[in-house]
């Protein structure tokens, strides 16, 4: 009997849903808290804790990335892979990979000090969007409307002296409706797509900042862009986020490797957790 291990560090709606769905399908499932694990250079695949395949659902990017490396190192199949986790967890790498693979994506500039970021912003002009390299749920994302706001942001980022706040991710502001699109891709199949509408007095569309979801129409054009993005990242279980530029059409701005789907499952008829389970079983048998 196949055994699927769900690796987590904070149990959310998604992990509980996946656990019950795997069990419902008559497959053995375990929930393993990544915070409790210890690896060493002698660690081996024989540890039954991890079953036949691991679904990595760790909320902390660095913890998840390093655990993924350890598990891959001992030869365990893990979804998503280290490579996918690394690409998706860092917005700079995501943007570069998307562009390299001809996936339409917003124009983004990277600066590596406050001084060069200031110069870049002056040159690019306003408004523009500043995002942290790492993080989710719309945290630390600001729409910079003028030079004084830019100066304020730069000062704050310099005070918050962590390694990643010294790298600046500056993105063009997209002329779009007050929504974006989240598509959940499992392997080479789109299992759910939703519009995420921003709440009143809020330009970000993240559900975490009050955005509401509605099932989206999956047009052939949208499907093509989403699958191209998924392929560029490496195909796995992904959340592809897109904006609808009024002139250029769909632009992929983010891909998530431990995708949350509470909002999507509330409005979509498809069985998201079921599709993920079937994919894990398929990967296990490969």
């Amino acid at each position, binding site marked *: 009997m196949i055994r699927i291990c769900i690796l987590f560090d904070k*149990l959310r709606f998604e992990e*509980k849903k996946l656990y019950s769905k795997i069990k419902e399908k008559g497959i053995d499932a375990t929930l393993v808290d990544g915070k409790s694990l210890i690896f060493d250079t002698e660690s081996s695949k024989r540890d039954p804790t991890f079953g036949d395949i691991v679904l990595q659902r760790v*909320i*902390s*990017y660095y913890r998840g990335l390093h655990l993924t490396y350890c598990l891959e190192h001992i030869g365990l199949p893990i979804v998503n892979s280290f490579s996918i986790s690394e690409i998706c967890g860092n917005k700079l790498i995501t943007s570069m990979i998307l562009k390299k693979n001809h996936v339409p994506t917003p124009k983004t500039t990277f600066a590596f000090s406050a001084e060069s970021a200031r110069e870049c912003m002056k040159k690019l002009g306003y408004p523009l969007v500043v995002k942290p390299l790492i*993080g989710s*749920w719309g945290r630390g994302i600001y729409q910079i409307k003028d030079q004084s706001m830019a100066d304020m942001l730069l000062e704050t980022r310099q005070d918050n002296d962590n390694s990643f706040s010294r790298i600046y991710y500056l993105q063009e502001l997209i002329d779009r409706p007050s929504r974006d699109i989240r598509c959940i891709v499992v392997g080479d199949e789109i299992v759910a797509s939703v519009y995420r509408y921003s709440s009143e007095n809020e330009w970000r569309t993240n559900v975490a900042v009050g955005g509401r979801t509605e099932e989206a129409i999956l047009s052939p054009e949208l499907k093509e862009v989403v699958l191209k993005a998924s392929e560029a990242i490496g195909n796995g279980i992904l959340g592809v986020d897109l904006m609808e530029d009024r002139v250029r059409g769909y632009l992929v701005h983010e891909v*998530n*490797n431990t*995708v949350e789907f509470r909002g999507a499952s509330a409005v979509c008829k498809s069985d998201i957790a079921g599709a993920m389970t079937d994919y894990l079983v398929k990967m296990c048998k490969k």
Partner: protein
Amino acid sequence: MKADCKDCGAEITIPQDSMVGEIITCPDCGTDFEIISKNQDNIEIKEAESVGEDWGQ
């Protein structure tokens, strides 16, 4: 099922279907706790990790 808040002492009601690893919040002081063990009658909690800059999806 109940637990006492380790910060303010208030009583926290734990839903029956809660699982180990889930986060519960004290209704009085707002401190987050993680469920670290659960059996028929006993529940053990510890203060949850604070939200990290690298948390996400």
